[in-house]
């Protein structure tokens, strides 16, 4: 990395006054490799991944855990049905036959409902 050309210097490019140490570069590279594998929808074993970067395991693991925690506590709990357990979908809604729940957003539930095409849906709102 040329210090003569600050435009190519990651310290300058990263925009921070923070000093970039070799350790930080190594962790950053490991993080980048992890993100690249995620982008391939690869299932990555964090334990094995961190063990492959000796000396950086603890710090790397905490960062990867933070990244994964952004998914929510678990796919099931964060993305599951907004309906209470045991609560059944109505058979019809606004004249549409309800076929099933697609899923739930933060404030709404989305359902399939039969109309003359894909158009039918409803949701709950606050």
């Amino acid at each position, binding site marked *: 990395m040329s210090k003569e050309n600050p435009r190519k210097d990651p310290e300058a490019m990263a925009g921070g006054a923070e000093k970039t140490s070799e350790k930080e570069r190594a962790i950053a*590279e490991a993080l980048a490799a992890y993100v690249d594998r995620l982008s391939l*929808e690869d299932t990555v074993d964090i334990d094995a991944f961190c063990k492959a970067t000796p000396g950086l395991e603890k710090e790397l693991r905490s960062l990867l855990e933070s990244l994964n925690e952004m998914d929510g506590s678990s796919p099931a709990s964060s993305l599951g049905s907004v309906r209470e357990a045991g609560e059944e979908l109505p058979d019809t809604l606004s004249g549409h036959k309800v076929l099933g729940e697609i899923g739930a957003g933060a404030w709404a539930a989305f359902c399939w409902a039969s109309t003359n095409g894909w158009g039918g849906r409803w949701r709950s709102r606050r």
Partner: protein
Amino acid sequence: MDGQTSTYDLVERFKGGDTAAFGLVFRKYQRSMAVLVHYKMSAELRGAMEVDDILQEVFLAAARDMKQFTYQSPGSLMAWLSRIADHVIMDAARYLNRGKRRAEELLRFRSESNPTGPEPVDSETPSRLFAREETVQILLKKLDALPAEYREVIVLAKFEGLTTKEISERVGKSRESVALLLHRGLKRFRELEASAG
């Protein structure tokens, strides 16, 4: 690659008429899409409509047009959904700017301006609703607290699913710089988590 196979299979199953497969697509992508849509929307647009208004249109369009989608590689579905979101947001902003909301198209539920539309149904208990909203809002609050350049690379990597090479092309920085920003951003995010208890 479970994820790759899974996404491909879900797309193919849905194309083959298995509507339940779309529910799984929705569950897999809705949180990422919610965060992505939040940051794609302008502050003005966020003040006028909820992220779920946009999400609803995005997933409806995805369901309607899935037959036109061709799975090419991991991440291609997310990229496609992201492009749909761009179009939906652009449409929403256009109508917002013109001062005439397409209530009958964006929000087709019964209201004074749309008396024949279906009624909104409140089927969620307040506690569950609050808990669900809270997890997304807490995440957004932490992301909002990050410096913009840190937040940008995290959103692109984590929620848009781009590779570091793709991010570097998107933001015009070297891959190494992107990696450093990602590292510093996650460190800051972790500090925010710790300070929040």
